[in-house]
């Protein structure tokens, strides 16, 4: 394979970083999040009330699946690569990385970093931490992403990863929250240990209740992790979370109940931070099963819901209308000019007629486990669709067991995606032929061709074109209704200062609130 060079003669890495900068320019941040720039200062204790967390939470990075585990991990661990507030890749434990062909990736590992236990971080630790997610016995949730990885080996101060095919976006995987660098022994990490190189050292942890951490005095970043201590509380009930903030028991809460956002803001003492990212809510339809196998039926449904109303009522305005497009406004190749689909019962009727139907009766299964307000969103969908002659019966399933019983089992249900920083990752995860999480069981010839081609395409414009065509295909021929992109809505006490820009890559400033924020 020849060395891939961009037109300007930049290496692959240069291309990617330039591209990320473009993506960042398109990032929309509401006014409320812009605060006067102030210098971070050390001190104080930061207390966060997080609406997740369970008594089964553990330390195994392959099994972290909720915001509590993720935020807790970000406080004590570092990864090879960080996604910064502008959604660009930034060096963390990897000082730099490069690839000549997209197949062999070389990560230069930072020297002189120590774990909380005092042990020096080595290249072997990095390899063991990555290998935890590979191989037969691995139980890691990111195991599928390591399938293309043929080999990981040390080369002096570098870690060299070899893939089975070129992937221009591979470096993004190293920023995944599942991949912290942990100390190893005999080529294995201990998944029951809290030891990391991160800004805070774990003092105590009760799963599903609270964790307390203290500042890591030897942290290698001098300007980060400014708090003396961090307390992370798991507060599942939205009202309890709200009360904890209002009584000053915590400084930050996530998932503010939309009904109370305005009142909370009017009350003073706290501010609402609303970050638009790539997270979105979806109603996948099983494209193998009638009536959803007919694209006309799918289009009829796509015109039969009032997206703006959903944004207003389900998200309290903290989000934006989505056009059945899983690529969000914070992505690099987001297709902003895709023709929008308004609420249009006549058009819906037209497509029904095209499908040879006068009326349509379908059942939409939902539970709030899919996303907060999923049942309400389904009810709104059902109300609006009635005008188009579509009867949607809403079936509320128990939250418990939703991902087993309903998702990818029922032909039409509610779900969500946290969004992915890379287009390829999003499409490969949920829209590629035969993908494990292709929840609409969708298979589109042209789309699949483009997906493979775009992965190793060098030309920036061609790549953009390809991804935009894919977005159009998913939007108009895909088997998912994506009504809205949901903002990450947090409420922060005025005691706490936040940087000018808060990351749109995941919630709570990319899980890194404890590292990036400081006492006002």
């Amino acid at each position, binding site marked *: 394979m020849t060395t891939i060079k961009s037109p300007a003669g930049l290496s692959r890495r240069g291309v990617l970083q330039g591209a990320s900068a473009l993506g960042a320019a398109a990032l929309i941040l509401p006014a409320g999040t812009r605060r006067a720039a102030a210098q971070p200062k050390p001190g104080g204790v930061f207390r966060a009330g997080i609406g997740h967390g369970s008594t089964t939470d553990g330390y195994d990075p392959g099994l972290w699946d909720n915001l509590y585990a993720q935020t807790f991990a970000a406080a004590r661990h570092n990864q090879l690569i960080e996604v910064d507030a502008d959604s660009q890749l930034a060096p963390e434990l990897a000082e730099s990385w490069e690839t000549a062909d997209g197949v062999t990736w070389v990560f230069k590992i930072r020297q002189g970093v120590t774990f909380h236990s005092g042990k020096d971080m080595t290249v072997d630790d990095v390899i063991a931490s990555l290998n935890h997610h590979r191989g037969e016995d691995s139980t890691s949730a990111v195991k599928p992403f390591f399938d293309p990885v043929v080999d990981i080996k040390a080369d002096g101060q570098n870690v060299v990863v070899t893939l089975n095919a070129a992937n221009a976006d591979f470096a993004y995987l190293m920023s995944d929250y599942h991949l912290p660098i942990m100390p190893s022994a005999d080529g294995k990490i201990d998944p029951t240990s809290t030891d990391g190189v991160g800004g805070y050292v774990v003092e105590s942890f009760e799963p599903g209740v609270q964790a307390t951490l203290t500042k890591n005095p030897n942290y290698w970043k001098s300007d980060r992790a400014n708090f003396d201590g961090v307390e992370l509380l798991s507060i599942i009930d939205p009202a309890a979370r709200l009360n904890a903030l209002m009584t000053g028991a915590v400084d930050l809460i996530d998932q503010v109940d939309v009904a109370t956002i305005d009142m*909370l803001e009017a009350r003073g003492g706290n501010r609402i931070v609303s970050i638009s990212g790539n997270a979105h809510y979806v109603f996948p339809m099983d494209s193998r099963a009638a009536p959803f196998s007919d694209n006309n039926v799918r289009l009829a449904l796509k015109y039969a819901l009032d997206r703006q109303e959903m944004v207003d009522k389900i998200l309290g305005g903290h989000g934006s209308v989505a056009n059945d497009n899983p690529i969000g406004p914070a992505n690099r190749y987001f297709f902003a000019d895709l023709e929008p689909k308004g609420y249009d019962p006549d058009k819906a009727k037209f497509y029904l007629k095209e499908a040879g139907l006068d009326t349509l009766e379908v059942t939409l299964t939902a*539970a709030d486990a899919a996303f907060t307000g999923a049942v309400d969103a389904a009810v709104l969908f059902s*109300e609006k669709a009635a005008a188009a002659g579509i009867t949607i019966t809403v079936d509320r399933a128990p939250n418990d067991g939703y991902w087993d019983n309903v998702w990818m089992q029922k032909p039409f249900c509610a779900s969500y995606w946290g969004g992915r920083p890379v287009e390829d990752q999003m499409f490969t995860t949920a829209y590629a032929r035969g993908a494990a999480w292709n929840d609409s069981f969708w298979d589109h010839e042209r789309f699949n061709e483009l997906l493979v081609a775009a992965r190793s395409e060098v030309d920036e414009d061609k790549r953009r074109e390809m991804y935009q065509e894919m977005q159009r295909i998913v939007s108009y021929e895909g088997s998912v209704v994506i009504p809205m992109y949901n903002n990450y809505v947090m409420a922060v006490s005025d005691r706490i200062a936040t940087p000018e820009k808060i990351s749109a890559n995941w919630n709570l400033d990319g899980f890194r609130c404890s590292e990036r924020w400081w006492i006002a």
Partner: protein
Amino acid sequence: MQATSILLGIVIAVTAALVSGWLFRALLVAVTSGELRRSFRGAPVTASFGMLVILLYFVVAVLAPILAPFPERQVVGAQYLPWEAPYYLGTDNLGRDMLTRLIYGARNTVGIAFATTGLAFVVGSVLGLWAATVGGWIDQVLSRLVDALMAIPALIFSLLLLTIFGTSITTLILVIATIDATRVFRLARSVAQGIVVMDFIEAAKLRGEGVWRLISREILPNALAPLVAEFGLRFCFVFLAISALSFLGLGIQPPTADWGSMVRENATLINFGDVTPLLPAGAIALLTVAVNFVVDWQLHRASGLKE
């Protein structure tokens, strides 16, 4: 200032309740005759207020489609609109008319609560009385089984069952009724045990009365008072069970209006002093108090106290 106005409000409400109760009793006495009239005349004001409330709820439940200004599930406007015509009690979190939802809620919630409690009582008391009457191994098996079921926390048990069997209204009724029936069984059995050893039961047995006749003619009438008292409380526990289930993400299927879920849906508003969630909660409370006032009156009559 606020405290005094709340206090004033309570005083006015209580006075209105007493006056309406008094008027309703006068009305009842006027339109009835004979035995019924005598008993109504002796009813305390609280009991007649209770009867008035129950009657009102019943009328609202039956006539819901006529009384409600909008269809049950229709989205009429923006969410949380203020209390102004034509939405006299504002709108809910999806922009549905609150008054309409409350009125339909009467029909759904009271219907479900009544069906559930009724079922629980029929099953629980029949089995309980039967176990106490026949005794022996039937009694042992039933009692141990009920003991075991009661020892599992009700909320968690119903969570388990509903997750297994689904959340249709029928399953909801069956699950809550099953769990409630164990409580009724226990009460019925212990009351009946006190009765079966009495002489008149012995006499009836000697007369050769069958088990079912014995239960329905001799034991049940004497065990009725505590069962009725229990009914009053169990009835309101059903609302609470549904509400607690909806707190944990189960409960009645949307878009059916039901008070328990409505409290849950709007509960966070109370943090900011918004009274919306108080409406369905108040509706439940008023009915509970009313039912139990009537139950108290009946208990008092059954106890034979003459004061």
